[in-house]
């Protein structure tokens, strides 16, 4: 029978997360909930390799890049759709074993259709989307719409307010 520790090291002062860290975590949670109410839930439902691929989404000033893990899928069978600020990646994962006279010994990989829709961080131009597949990774590059690309507004200092 295993022993159950009464205290973790982290709960004893030095290593404990600060209140600020906790607050930032809670804020993040609220933030993601407001943006995509059931996003976290549906992700959990999908599982990491289940219903949809795991995704990374990153941005530059002008582009949004989405990376998806899709090993063993024919690129022609992957559907990438942009509708408004939503991106859908769908397809079907099939077994890659060529020979038919096999017995399955051990199974961990999931097969079948998958579809995953995410809300993009900004609006994008649906005509300027490119998708590339290499080594089982799908990379979708989207161009932000001019409005969404963000413009730096210079703060002028020249004129002083007129006083009577």
């Amino acid at each position, binding site marked *: 029978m295993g022993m159950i520790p009464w205290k973790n090291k982290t709960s004893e002062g030095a290593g404990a997360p600060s209140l600020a860290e906790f607050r930032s975590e809670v804020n993040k949670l609220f933030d993601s909930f407001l943006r995509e109410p059931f996003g976290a839930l549906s*992700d959990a439902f999908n599982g*990491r*390799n289940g219903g949809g691929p*795991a*995704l*990374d*989404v*990153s*941005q*530059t*000033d002008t582009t949004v*890049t989405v*990376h998806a*893990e*899709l*090993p*063993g*899928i024919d690129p022609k069978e992957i559907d990438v759709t942009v509708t408004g600020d939503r991106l859908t990646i769908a397809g079907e994962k099939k*077994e*890659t*074993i060529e*020979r038919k*006279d*096999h*017995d*399955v*010994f*051990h*199974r*961990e*990989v999931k097969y079948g259709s998958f579809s995953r829709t*995410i809300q993009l*961080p900004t609006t994008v131009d649906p005509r300027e989307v490119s998708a590339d*597949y290499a*080594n*089982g*990774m799908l990379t979708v590059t989207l161009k932000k719409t001019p409005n969404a690309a963000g413009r730096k507004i210079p703060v002028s200092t020249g004129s002083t307010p007129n006083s009577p």
Partner: protein
Amino acid sequence: MSLEATMPQENAEVSPAEHTRGGTYYRPNVDIYELPAELVVKADMPGAKMDEIDIQFEDGSLVIHARLPARQEKQGPFSRKEYGVGDYYRTFRVSEQIDASRISADYSAGILTLHLPKTEAVKPRKIQVEAK
């Protein structure tokens, strides 16, 4: 040849996203098939580079290790980050009924395929990854 004997026994020491030896390791999902003359292992290892995949067979253990490059270099802030960067690592215990000297591997579309021909075990050797 019994199934039990030829089945590569999974080594339970490595779990998904385990932090050991100073790095992060992910255990790739595998399917194992038995064909009349061989066992075929297919491992989902997206994003790996062929020359970074290291397969070793020694002492009845088959070790798969692949270093992964950073997936998104010098990109802007992440608005979603669901998979981490770390190496793929997994070991299998292979029965003596596998001919280790003839194990071969290829990598295509993010899937590593290992062919383990059936026969007696032979001496340890390093297995090269071939282009496909």
